[in-house]
């Protein structure tokens, strides 16, 4: 019966593979997750951002079936996470293997838990380290092993919690290409991260967590465009220009001048609007520069400037 149900879900394509409804979880008096709702579509890389203690890890632990929510519901493939354990692959934040266990042994052990295990070791560059003990591995290799273990059961959904924290920039980039490869293999990914660059590069949509709630949920560029004055154009006009004309443009939110330089802030289409105006007035924009607000800036605004306590 459930096979039929899965078939229906699968057939409809783009349907939510993960559904979280008004999830709530507290530890004693402390509210970890207040009320969180989101859906993840099949094949999506869904980013979860937010400061420490915002409820990110608790939320994904509920999705993984590791914690029971106090309120609300979580379903994966239309069922309770505990019932579809082999369809969910999890890489946990700060999870270590015993020191003396060898890479090959861990892979072999985990593959014995699943009916049709997938071997990611060569794609993850682990083939040359099968005899190495976990305690001897570099941070990057440890992370790759934990990804390989998360993917060994050929999961439909992979949860990766702070995958690249503590990695050097090169190892981080290598890990990103691995994640892209995993997605192209058809795996839906929930990615908890601290790095804006990572979210911008990988995620289709991002949920920004704040105080146990989702402060914003959008594509990375959608989040950026929510910030007022997201785009800023600076130039020195070749002839004098009436500032009122600029201010009249619907795309413009603010105009200021620094010496002979004009600084115009506004929405995404600002550059086009400003250059069209200048062309009509036959004014050339000298030393033209365009600045885009980054996801980093958007994040700071959305989380109420709590970036400083986030590390």
């Amino acid at each position, binding site marked *: 019966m459930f096979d039929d149900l899965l078939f229906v879900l699968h057939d409809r394509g783009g349907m939510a593979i993960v559904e979280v409804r008004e999830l709530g979880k507290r530890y004693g008096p402390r509210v970890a997750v207040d009320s969180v709702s989101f859906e993840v579509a099949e094949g999506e890389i869904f980013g979860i951002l937010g400061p420490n203690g915002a409820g990110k890890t608790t939320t994904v632990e509920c999705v993984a079936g590791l914690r029971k929510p106090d309120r609300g519901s979580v379903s994966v493939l239309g069922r309770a996470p505990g019932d579809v354990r082999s369809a969910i692959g999890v890489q946990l934040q700060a999870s270590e*293997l015993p020191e003396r266990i060898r890479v090959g042994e861990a892979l072999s*052990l985990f593959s014995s838990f*699943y009916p049709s295990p997938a071997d990611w070791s060569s794609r993850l560059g682990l083939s040359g380290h099968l005899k190495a003990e976990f305690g001897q591995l570099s941070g990057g290799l440890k992370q790759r092993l934990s990804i390989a273990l998360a993917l060994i059961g050929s999961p439909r959904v992979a949860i990766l919690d702070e995958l690249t924290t503590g990695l050097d920039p090169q190892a981080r980039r290598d890990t990103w290409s691995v994640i892209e490869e995993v997605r192209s293999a058809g795996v839906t990914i929930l990615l908890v991260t601290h790095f804006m660059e990572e979210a911008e590069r990988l995620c289709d949509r991002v949920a920004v967590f704040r105080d146990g709630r989702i402060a914003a949920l959008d594509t990375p560029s959608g989040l950026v465009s929510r910030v007022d004055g997201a785009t800023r154009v600076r130039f020195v006009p070749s002839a004098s220009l009436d500032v009122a004309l600029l201010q009249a443009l619907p795309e413009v939110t603010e105009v200021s001048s620094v010496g002979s330089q004009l600084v115009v802030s506004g929405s995404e289409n600002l550059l086009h609007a400003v250059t069209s105006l200048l062309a009509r007035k036959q004014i050339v924009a000298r030393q033209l520069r365009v600045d885009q607000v980054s996801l980093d800036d958007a994040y700071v605004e959305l989380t109420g400037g709590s970036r400083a306590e986030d590390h």
Partner: protein
Amino acid sequence: MNTRFLALELRRAVRNGRYLIFTVVVPAVMFLLFVNLYGGGEGTFPNGLPVTTSLMMNMALFGVMAGPLSIGARIAVERGLGWQRQLRLTPLTGSGYLLTKGALGMLVGLPGILLVCVIGAFEGVRMDAAHWIGVLATLWLGAIPFVLLGIVIGLVATPDGMQAITGLASMLFGLLGGIWIPADVAPDWLATIMKALPTFWVKQLTQAPFVSGVNVGEALLVITLWVVGLSVIAARRYRVQS
């Protein structure tokens, strides 16, 4: 049960030098030490058991207790690492996990018993084949409560507190269980405590074929109570932590 999991756990136990020393070497060395101290040879204890035979049984029992205790307690370390959490996320069931740890504890107790008995044979312990098998089997099955005790400690203790608790348990069950001092010489109140511990009764069962007056029924009852009680606690703890 997942045999690959068990095989890996065994390999890890053997790779751990500390395990080999404490559970295999220490009981054997203690046995040799005591045999030479007491003179061994032809002497017998008041209960009629030859000194060497009695020491052999006691030291094997010590091994039966120490090995499984230390192996079970390593669960605390694995919990601290997050390794157990990772295993919980796989389709490996809770009973599969606990049974594997239990089987591991049983296998880990075996080499110590065998080594002490082999040394015993060299030191002049004589009994017929059926009795040898009986003694070995009793000692080995007697490991069950200690295997469970180790697992419970592993599920309850923190990685830091684990060593202290294991040490304490080893003292309590060894000393009060009558491995180091016989219950006959203890004052009444102490003897009562000793007779509540599984160690005392496993020792009684091992000696049963050779001395008179062992209450086999009471022995089995006390040991069974320990086994059932510890199993329930282990299963509960494992579930609560999920």
